[in-house]
């Protein structure tokens, strides 16, 4: 027991000082087995400066065991326009720890990933540094930080997402101002070590347990990760809360306020439609057909980091809109027709983002409409020109959606 306490004390001291020793040594056979590379030590620090800005600092040491592990030893990073990358150090060493090469910022290949399809939604800055050596095994080490604006979505901490790669040690430290709160959710073998505080800051620590190499085909393995939300977030000056799904829904309600007004031509069109058809089902289909025929879906994310829709007036004038704009117009048309409907945040399945009911956060990347027809949910996908009303798109089927309603937002599975 004494030994255990001593060990914990050593870890704490090491973490509190923010210093991680990157000494190399023999890798345990159990971790080396089937590995092409091993993450020897991975230290991450997230410091929240205020509700809107934070800094991520990362230091990572990887041992590359053979040719197939080369990619894991290289440095690759893609960040968006709201992040500023700052290089600190990068080097390689041989099995004896003797430095082979030291890299400078000039060695980093910088390029741009541009929003050319709906798959890539942001303009990304792309950084990569090839650190491969000719003789195996060798070690790569890099140290960098990113200053990020906007706390709506904080990247998960995933110490080792790769297959055929072992993990020896990974630690995370989060630094907060005393008045700030975070929520976290652990997946897989991660443990919270300790909390600590000073007059100026609060500190939280996590550690990933050593991880054996896994094969890519092993779908039963839970990749260790930690989800993090700042309870009170801020994006481009707009403040919201992740205290509950209701509070997050209220942020969306606030963003959409004042945007539901319809141009007079559209109000008349809705009145004519309601007069023409005698059932809600037919009215919904007629209004949906109108959207499909007259408007073009374009993937252009504007307004509060891509979360605030353009006005109906603009959509009507231009005949174009993204998922938010087209859904907003559809809801406005249904409101005018007197049919109950909701603006719904959704998540496309291909993003593999699981949403947990007990962990309010923003994992959404799409907007749909849920109309209530004869007491049943009637999903409407406004970006499609082929579907019929009530038919949800395949890429969202079976996933959770956040039904947005003032003080009453809730999660619901799309069927």
């Amino acid at each position, binding site marked *: 027991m004494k030994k255990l306490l001593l060990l914990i004390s050593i870890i704490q001291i090491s973490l509190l000082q923010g210093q991680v020793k990157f000494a190399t040594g023999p890798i345990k056979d159990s971790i080396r087995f089937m590995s092409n590379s091993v993450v020897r030590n991975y230290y991450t620090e997230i410091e929240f400066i205020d509700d809107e800005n934070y800094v991520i600092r990362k230091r990572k040491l990887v041992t590359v065991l053979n*040719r197939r592990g080369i990619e894991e030893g290289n440095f690759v990073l893609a960040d968006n326009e709201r992040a500023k990358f700052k290089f600190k150090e990068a080097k390689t060493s041989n099995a004896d720890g003797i430095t082979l090469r030291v890299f400078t910022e000039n060695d980093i290949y910088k390029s741009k990933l541009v929003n050319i399809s709906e798959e890539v939604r942001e303009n990304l800055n792309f950084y990569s540094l090839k650190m*491969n050596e000719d003789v195996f095994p060798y070690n790569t080490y890099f140290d960098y930080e990113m200053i990020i604006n906007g706390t709506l979505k904080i990247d998960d901490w995933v110490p080792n997402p790769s297959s055929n790669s072992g993990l020896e040690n990974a630690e995370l430290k989060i630094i907060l101002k005393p008045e700030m709160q975070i929520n976290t959710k652990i997946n897989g073998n991660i443990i919270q070590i300790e909390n600590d505080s000073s007059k100026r800051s609060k500190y939280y620590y996590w550690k990933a347990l050593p991880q054996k190499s896994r094969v890519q085909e092993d779908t039963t393995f839970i990749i260790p990760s930690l989800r993090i939300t700042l309870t009170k977030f801020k994006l481009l000056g707009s403040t919201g809360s992740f205290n509950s799904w209701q509070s997050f829904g209220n942020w969306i309600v606030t963003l959409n306020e004042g945007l539901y007004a319809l141009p007079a031509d559209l109000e008349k069109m809705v009145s004519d439609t309601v007069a023409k058809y005698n059932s809600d089902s037919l009215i919904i289909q007629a209004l949906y057909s109108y959207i499909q025929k*007259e408007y073009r879906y*374009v993937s252009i994310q504007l307004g509060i980091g891509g979360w605030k829709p353009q006005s109906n007036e603009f959509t009507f*004038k*231009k005949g*174009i809109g993204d998922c938010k704009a087209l859904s907003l117009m559809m809801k406005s048309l249904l409101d005018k027709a007197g049919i109950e409907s909701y603006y719904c945040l959704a998540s496309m399945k291909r993003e593999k983002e699981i949403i947990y009911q007990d962990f309010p956060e923003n994992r959404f990347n799409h907007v749909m409409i849920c109309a209530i027809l004869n007491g049943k949910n009637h999903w409407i996908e406004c970006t499609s020109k082929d579907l019929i009303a009530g038919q949800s798109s395949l890429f969202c089927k079976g996933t959770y959606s956040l039904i947005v309603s003032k003080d009453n937002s809730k999660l619901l599975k799309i069927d």
Partner: protein
Amino acid sequence: MFIKIYPVLFCILFSLNLKTQNFEFGKITANDFTNHLNLADSTVGALVLFDSISLRIITIEDYFFLKLIRHKRVLILKDEAIDEATVVFQKKGGDNLIKRDLKSSFEGYTYHLKDGKVIVVATIDNTDIYNDKFTTKVVFPKVKKGCIFELKSEIEEPIFINLLSWDFQNQYPVVKSSIDLLISEHFDIATTSFGGEPIKPLSSLEAEIRNIKNSNYHLDQFLENKPFLAQRVYYSLTNLPAFSGERYLHNPIEHKKSIHFTVNQLNLPSYKEEIMGYRFLNVKKFKQSWEEFSKEYLKKDYLLNSLKRIERLQTFYLPKFNSTMDDKSKIDSIIFYLKNKVQWNGKEDYEPQQSIFETLEKGSGNSADINILLYSLLNAASFEVYPVVISSRGLGSLKTQFADKNQLNKIIVAIKFGENLIFRDATNKYLNNALLPLSAYNGKAALLKEGGVEFIDLSSDYLKMNEKFQHKFIVNNNKTCFISAIITPTLFRSAELRKYLDEEKSMESVKKWLLSRSFVVPDSVVIDNETSVSEALKIRVFYTLTMKEDSSKLSLPPFIWGKTLINPFINKNDELPAELDYCLNQYIVSEISFENKLPELKLPEKLTSNFNGQSIIYQLEAGIFDNSLNIMSRLKTNKTFFSSTESIGLGEYFRDIIKKQNEKIIIIN
């Protein structure tokens, strides 16, 4: 070649206001919505009515820039093509050189046809133009099926060595596509065209510019008002079918009708400034001729020094030959020596990064380090050798008009062997010595020698990248099926497997290789005894399939080798055992690909005469319809895809395949 006309005419020629070109295509009429439809087959989503570009070189604050004026008009025929109406321009930077921002302006309209009349339903304004850090997007309003959108853009861009690349052909058919290029004599431009027969200008006029200040040329500060010559070239092609790459083409981009202009050289008498980071006086050469390149390469230190060190190489490094060895054995022994002594670091280059002795001491290097060493050792062994520079597959076929260093990424060695040349590479130790890496087989390569260059053909027509496959099926008591198979990978496949086995000689390695080849992973594997790279490698694989308890039949998966379906019962007299279901539906591939260049077969006489002067595209599609595997062929005539001399009898080839595959394979669910 160029027509010389009198200065008065040139003044007219060059004083044409650039804006007048915007109206070259006239106003949109109702006919534009309907009359061109016969050009598009019913499957296309859009028709490009015209797409034109005019290029001018301008100067801003002593720097050269391009001014590109584009005019495009597109008819949307289907919803699937509606995204064409979001036009994306990549920002190329360069404005850090000058005080003002580079200019761009856009004019655009969306037209609908209503009651036989053309109506402008939208005019683009600033709210339709989305700028971010890297792109400018023009999003056309009110676009839907049956409309026409039209864009006129004027953009200033920095000049790169690759001045302009223009695709006449694209995803959708094009009625008319044109380029109008005005270049002064100070720019020496190389023109390369792809997609069959060379694209020739419709008109090419050379003119003397006297009134420089009014010439739209903005070169007065460099020319001290001296007259100069300029050339205006106009290209135009009409009725171009849609282009789609085919899997059997190594460099599909080269089969698309396109033209590329690159700057060879800039020659301005009094120009002394920095352009694109180059400081030069009077003349700046951007591109080299092959003769110049060859001369320069053969004088490089790494080649000359290696030739000076023959004695050292012979004494310390050259393998000892015994008296019974013929020339071929000597060459092989040098290659074996190198393949074992020096490890390739996976990097390709045509220039070494270290001396031959550093490579020998370090025991590793890039492809040029290794092959220059091979060149030196062969030379030390008294063979007549030449360096051969290559553009690997994917980088496009070697440009023979000039040496484009950006395209070169590899060097191999040519050895004079009797009257012939043989080619060798020592990078891949798993590959048979007689083979070059697959990526090196990319058409033409340049053999460098004193006094010039010789272009040699490195095609891989004869190289079949495959495996031999023999199998045996035994059904036991109607309950289990035992399958044993012998797989003999050949050529490059053999090298792949040897690499896996070299890392770890185990059943797992073979299974991983089988997985990489999309093969059904067997229950067990036996690897034949160690064989040298010159011998065939054999593996034996075994499967046991057991009948499900609730089923009266066994389910037998077909073997998929790469993306090619291997029906175990084709070409066999054995009848399908009644106990087996052949479950194609579980493993069917959606497409059949041809990894090798198609064999050269003559196009049938009848077809050739029917499409005189044109080439023909056959499209092959495979899919499951009505519970059976159907393979369909489709023929498209195309003036540009292959020139008549390059036709390679695709029809015969596909017909042969169709004949073999067209048997209906019943799928039992």
